[in-house]
């Protein structure tokens, strides 16, 4: 009954939106029910706040608990001499930023050997490493001592390092996700919003990479989500600042850049006259340039320093892709040996051309008919295009399409429940290398459970949100695709690969997940084009 009670109250809120269709079904008792629940809602005293707030709070607390639990486990390169892994890279950056002057961070010097995990992320990452490095330096100076701390691993320094990620997640990603959900789904029922928040915060991919493998994606992705929320709430300049920060934290955020560019341009062109449109574009451009200038300030002394930094950010020699990535180049490598057939320069140009043409449909749609919903779809489509076709893609890059998918939780519940597990699955070889099998299993199971919360029926919520646009996936298809994934898991864990093809199973996993991503990309592009144009602010007021 608790649930039904809640629903009735929420239906009241919905009434304004849905119109008279529901009013017929609402019994006269509603009026009487209103009294107590209204009184309940008026109370905002902690901890007795509204159901929505308290549940959101619980979801965030639970998400944080899970992150702490994952951080108990192993990390990338734990105890693996001589090169270690991403954990050592991040620790080394702290060591360098704490002990050397800003100008030398990206330069090969006696104190900063760039061949040993040289800094190759943009300046905001360096500043973040500096702040975290100072914190660790204050507690355990040996952990970030210059030269002597290479490969430093102690139980206490592991806790400290884990806490730098945990705190960044809590300070950047959580508020951003909450803001986005409240802006984007403001017209939806509270229960749905809580579910959407849970989908954003509790999906396994980000938790495993940030708190297991060890990276700070939560900062760049959190800033990107915040930028998206700013776009949706019509704060375009703020969006530009936030997105530039995100780009300056990790160049990978460029995956979203076409979506932001297209949407903001499209918004500007909606203005009444050409002058206003032009002014809007210039305004945005200046904001971006200013933010970049501030971030890059220490490196703008001369052309050399700036180029030095730039060359660190674009390591062309790393190749088209790493290991087994479920993207186009790797997926078709069995049929056509891209790496052998073309020189690196040609490949880079080819990749650039393919990426831009894959982004184009989505960008054109946003320039032509910018809409809030379309923008998030466009973020997904552009990031998928980058993931498929761009140069130097890593398995972890799948996080970038995962985030917009999780943001679309209420719009596309089936896609969320289907894409995110497969995206995580595509990272399985990487996670296994890091010794994260147990959290992988636990978090995948948990995601499956959370997405099927007992008192939350997502089928019904889909049916009410937009009945026409939703196509239910045929059961046979879902069952066979999940069965296939299960068989692959069993093969991967249970069987020895044939000696001639030691990476047969990795390749199979890659091909299988790639085969799943392609139809998704096509469907999402079609979906974006079939979205209605947003009503403008002016029309809404009328």
């Amino acid at each position, binding site marked *: *009954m*608790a649930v039904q*009670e809640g629903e009735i109250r929420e239906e009241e809120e919905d009434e304004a939106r849905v119109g008279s269709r529901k009013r017929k079904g609402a019994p006269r*008792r509603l009026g*009487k*029910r209103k*009294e*107590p*629940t209204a*009184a*309940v809602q*008026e*109370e905002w005293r902690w*901890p*007795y706040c509204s*159901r929505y707030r*308290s*549940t959101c*709070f*619980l979801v965030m*607390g*639970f998400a*944080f*608990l*899970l992150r*702490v*639990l*994952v951080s*108990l*486990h192993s990390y990338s390169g734990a105890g693996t001499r001589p090169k270690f892994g991403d954990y050592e890279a991040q620790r080394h950056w702290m060591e360098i930023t704490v002990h050397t002057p800003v100008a030398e961070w990206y330069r090969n010097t006696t104190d900063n050997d760039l061949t040993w995990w040289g800094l190759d992320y943009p300046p905001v990452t360096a500043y973040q490493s500096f702040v975290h490095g100072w914190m660790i330096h204050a507690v355990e100076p040996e952990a970030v001592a210059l030269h002597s701390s290479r490969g430093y691993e102690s*139980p*206490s320094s*592991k*806790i400290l390092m884990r806490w730098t990620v*945990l705190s960044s997640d809590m300070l950047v990603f959580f508020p951003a996700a909450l803001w986005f959900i409240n802006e984007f789904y403001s017209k939806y029922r509270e229960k749905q919003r809580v579910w959407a928040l849970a989908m954003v915060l509790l999906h396994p991919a980000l938790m495993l990479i940030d708190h297991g493998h060890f990276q700070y994606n939560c900062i760049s992705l959190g800033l990107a989500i915040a930028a998206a929320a700013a776009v949706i709430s019509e704060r375009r300049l703020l969006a530009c600042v936030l997105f530039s920060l995100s780009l300056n934290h990790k160049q990978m955020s460029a995956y979203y850049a076409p979506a932001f560019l297209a949407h903001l341009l499209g918004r500007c062109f909606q203005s009444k006259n050409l002058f206003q449109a032009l002014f809007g574009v210039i305004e945005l451009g200046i904001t971006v340039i200013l933010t970049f200038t501030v971030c890059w300030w220490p490196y703008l002394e001369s052309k050399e320093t700036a180029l030095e930094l730039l060359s660190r950010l674009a390591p062309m020699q790393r190749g088209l892709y790493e290991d087994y990535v479920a993207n186009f180049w790797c997926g078709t490598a069995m049929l056509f040996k891209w790496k052998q057939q073309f020189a690196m320069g040609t490949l880079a140009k080819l990749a650039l051309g393919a990426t831009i043409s894959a982004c184009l449909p989505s960008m054109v749609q946003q320039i032509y008919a910018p809409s809030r919903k379309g923008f998030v779809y466009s973020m997904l489509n552009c990031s998928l295009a980058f993931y498929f076709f761009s140069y130097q893609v890593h398995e972890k890059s799948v996080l970038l399409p995962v985030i917009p998918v999780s943001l679309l939780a209420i719009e596309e519940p089936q896609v969320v429940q289907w894409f995110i597990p497969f995206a995580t699955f595509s990272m399985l070889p990487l996670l296994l290398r890091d010794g994260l099998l*147990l*959290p992988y*299993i*636990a*978090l995948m*199971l*948990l995601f499956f*459970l*959370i997405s*099927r*919360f*007992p008192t939350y029926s997502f089928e019904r919520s889909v049916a009410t949100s937009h009945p026409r646009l939703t196509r239910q996936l045929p059961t046979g298809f879902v069952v066979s695709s999940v069965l296939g994934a299960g068989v692959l898991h069993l093969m991967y864990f249970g069987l020895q690969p044939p000696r001639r093809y030691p990476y047969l199973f990795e390749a199979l996993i890659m091909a299988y997940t790639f085969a799943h991503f392609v139809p998704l990309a096509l469907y999402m592009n079609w979906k974006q084009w079939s979205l209605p144009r947003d009503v403008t602010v002016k029309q809404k007021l009328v």
Partner: protein
Amino acid sequence: MRTSNSHELLWMVAVSTCIKLLLVPSYHSTDFEVHRHWMAITSSLPLEEWYLDETSEWTLDYPPFFAWFERFLALFASYVDPRMVDLVGGLNYSSETVILFHRVTVMAADSVLYWGLWRFCRKFPIEKQRIVYAAVAFSPGLLMVDHVHFQYNGFLLGILLLSLSCLREGRNVMGGFWFSVLVCFKHLFAVAGPIYFVYLLRHHCRGSSWFAKFFVLGSTVLSVVGVAFGPFIYYGQMGQVLKRLFPFGRGLCHAYWAPNFWSLYNTTDKVLAAALRLLGVDLPTPKAAMTGGLVGDSSGHVVLPKVTPAVTGLLVLVAMLPCMIRIWRKPRRSEVVQWIVYSYICGYMFGWHVHEKAALHFVVPLSLLIVDSVEASVDFVFISTVSYYSLFPLLFEGKEYPIKVLLLFLYTYGITIYQTHYFGDLQARQLNESGDGQTEPVEPTVSKSSFSASKVNWKVDYSFQEVELIGSWKKLYLCGLIPVELYSQFLHPFVFKDRLPFVPLMLISVYCAVGLFYSWAKQLRACFKESKSEVLSKVH
């Protein structure tokens, strides 16, 4: 209305199993080695040597059924890694596989807990089931003690819940059977024995055929005990077994004082001794030195009289006496859970060498009563928070610190919020029913118990004020846990460095003891109350 809600239970069980899986690499205490060694003893030695073996300091000191349980686990263990069950070669062997295997056995054994839980709750209305399931499945105490610290309490409490569910249904023989099985698994549960005895005597053995009933019940219980201990009587080892089961030489309190009556007693003694010394009275120094955070054997009381096991036993019985008289007069099956809970609190408050983990014995059964009335739910939140907090010193490593804090905080917050909404909805429904004019205005049962003063104007001012679960001074006490924790964790090491290392644990123990002592008194009072569930069940 749908009454079976097993799929929600399964959902919660699966979620909590995921949490347990994530907890696998966390800290485990010496209890892990204890259980591994018992597995080795039972699988590699014949029955007559189980209670004689002294290969390791962790000798077998649980009753025979638990030993058989370890024997059963050893069947699988020898497949996984034979070294695990090697009596000598396996000593202190803790590879990742061994840890994973043991953790998985605890998770699997928890299925008994969920079976007992489901059996107890299956007739409840659906929202009530939901909250009770959540209260047990996500209990931070069980997670901390079983899945971090390492023990099999969930499994044992499952047997207790089975027994309680049988008693509640009036199936007294089965209730007695399960209880005797439980005691043969872990004898610490025998504290409730007197309550069981009086209850079964008065509730079951009555009517014309009372002797036949008594005979059936008695022979059931005796045959269970016989199966467990018979072989050892046959080998003439009963004295040895009992010596292992009841090591009275261990002292009144454990290293970390469980927050019970004796904790207050010890503190009073210390304070008095210190005060008298200041006044110049010459007192003998106690044998046990307070060093290294271990207060140790505190039987060396200086001022207050010395306490012996017999005194503690007598005190437990005296504390239970009012409840037994009540049962003798009115043996009602609807109140049996309350009485059993009370008996375990008595055992905890006054027992000899009580370990803080024993708090689970009353908190978990108490969660079955969680939404019977506002008062019961307030008591539950209070007792569970205080006693789970008192478990914190069990996990002392840095990496688990945020986990235990988050677990307790989220649990208390979640349960409080859910209960608040539950009672709010309940009242809303009562008002609607009365407002429709179809039924007579229902007594505001929810408010009656704790807010009798506001009864007059309940129709106007009934909504939230009265559902506010925890009264202000209780809230103050619970919030006081935060400064206690902050002081003992951060401020004390900062201010005193290495001096007075026992103070933080003593502070926690004494602070929690005050709260639990109050709760004990509340539970005693609750034993004399009419069961609220009957009154409330009208609503559903």
